[in-house]
């Protein structure tokens, strides 16, 4: 896709994110005009169209309420709904009676003791594991960030961007550009020629996060994605979660750190043992 298509892609993403058509057109025209005035292409000035659209929507949602009203966006359409979901492996019950509804612009945390089925629940949400009972409804655009693994040891970060971008139907150049842009938000500049196996644990998790977000999913499923993060990166991560929420995405994050819970909209407690009763708490 050529840079000439950038305004059209930008406008299409704004529409997809719920902007009024006239407003989306005005923003696209305004952005294209800024690029012309700066004498450079919009892709170089603003980065990938779909990411800049999300960033802009996030910024617009952060505008403080004025006389004409406004304020934080109301939760949007439902992007994930679990009804009475259960999972058993032969006779062993891992999950039972799980209900969860996550809307656009919401962050849900899944907590519970080790082995209580948090990761299994996330895999069910992704569609990689089938529930034994209950019903799942989910948006098609979903990104998964596993707790560990999920990368190819001998490929560089840029090659990962190309690979995951190809899976999502993105041209290699656009995928690399989007990946580098997303990495920069996590204060990471991937080194050329460095394979994933030479990355530190924290940096590899940054790569995992970028790959989860690369296809611009509406729903992000994160399984304790901050393993190995230093304090600054950990704070950057939660700021990023807030930015996703403000941009109208839904986020489900598995965590065991209780102080994370102040930043989420609802908590799903899977209890202390496999198959135990669950409690969802809206915040």
């Amino acid at each position, binding site marked *: 896709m050529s840079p000439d298509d950038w305004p059209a892609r930008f406008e299409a993403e704004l529409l997809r994110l719920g902007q009024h058509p006239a407003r989306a057109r005005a923003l696209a025209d305004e952005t294209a005009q800024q690029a012309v005035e700066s004498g450079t292409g919009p892709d170089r000035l603003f980065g990938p169209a779909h990411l800049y659209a999300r960033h802009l929507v996030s910024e617009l949602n952060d505008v403080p309420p004025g006389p004409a009203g406004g304020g934080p966006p109301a939760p949007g*359409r*439902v*992007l*994930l*709904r679990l009804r009475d979901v259960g999972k058993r492996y032969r006779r062993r019950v891992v999950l039972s009676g799980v209900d969860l509804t996550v809307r656009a612009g919401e962050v849900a945390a899944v907590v519970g003791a080790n082995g209580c089925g948090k990761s299994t629940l996330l895999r069910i949400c*992704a*569609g*990689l594991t*089938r529930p034994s009972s209950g019903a*799942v*409804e*989910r*948006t*098609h655009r*979903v*990104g*998964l960030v*596993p707790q560990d*693994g*999920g*990368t*190819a*040891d*001998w*490929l560089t970060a840029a*090659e990962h961007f*190309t*690979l*995951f971008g*190809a*899976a*999502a*139907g993105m041209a*290699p150049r656009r995928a690399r550009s989007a990946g580098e842009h997303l990495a920069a938000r996590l204060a990471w500049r991937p080194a050329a020629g460095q*394979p994933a196996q030479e990355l530190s644990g924290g940096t590899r998790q940054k790569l995992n996060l970028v*790959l*989860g977000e*690369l*296809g611009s999913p509406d729903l992000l499923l994160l399984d304790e994605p901050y393993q190995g993060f230093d304090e600054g990166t950990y704070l950057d991560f939660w700021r990023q979660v807030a930015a996703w929420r403000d941009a109208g995405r839904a986020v489900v994050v598995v965590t065991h750190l209780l102080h994370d819970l102040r930043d989420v909209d609802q908590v799903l407690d899977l209890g202390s043992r496999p198959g135990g009763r669950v409690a969802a708490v809206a915040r």
Partner: protein
Amino acid sequence: MTAVVVAGLTLREVTRRRAVMVLLIGMPLAFYLTRRDLPGQSTRMLTLGIGWAVATLTLFVVNAQRGVDPRLRLAGASVTALVGGRLLAMTAAGVGLAGGYWGLVAVLQDVRRPWAIGPLMLVSALVGVPFGSLVGALLPRELEGALALLTVVAVQMLANPEGLLAEVMPFWSARELGNYAIDATAVSDLWRALLHAGATWTLATGLTVALFARRLRVARYPEP
């Protein structure tokens, strides 16, 4: 498009592993050098070494992606693109290996039909690719897969060439083609070998895709 990207990146991954490349090239060479005084034996062993090396490499390549493939499926990649891309990459590696050793044998050995050495090596490499991926699909852990490949190749070497056991082994076609190239047997051996190779390739590829389609299936949930 996705398959081509997967193929290109798979080749890059493999070529970065220098020790693997040395062993991939060196294993058939070791088979060859052991009996280099006997043109027939050395060429047959070399052929089997190529098939074994390519199958083992494919097994490890396929299994190394177990953590990545579910995420790629979730991102939108099809099973055929993922499996097809890797088979394409391994086929390219196998063709390169077979081509190199064809040249070696053509120069150093006195065989009755030197031109047929090319197809002989090629068939061994081409059958080794889907066979290695099928073993990887059936046995997702590397050690089990490597032991299974070792068993198959050992049985292939030791089985009576005229018996049914030898005929159902995946590399029987290379043995038959070897007879045609080295001992100048009838052309019917050539056709039988090509038919066997084609059937083995089709069966192994089909089963590989079917098994990975099952392993990598993603539930299609309705939109809320």
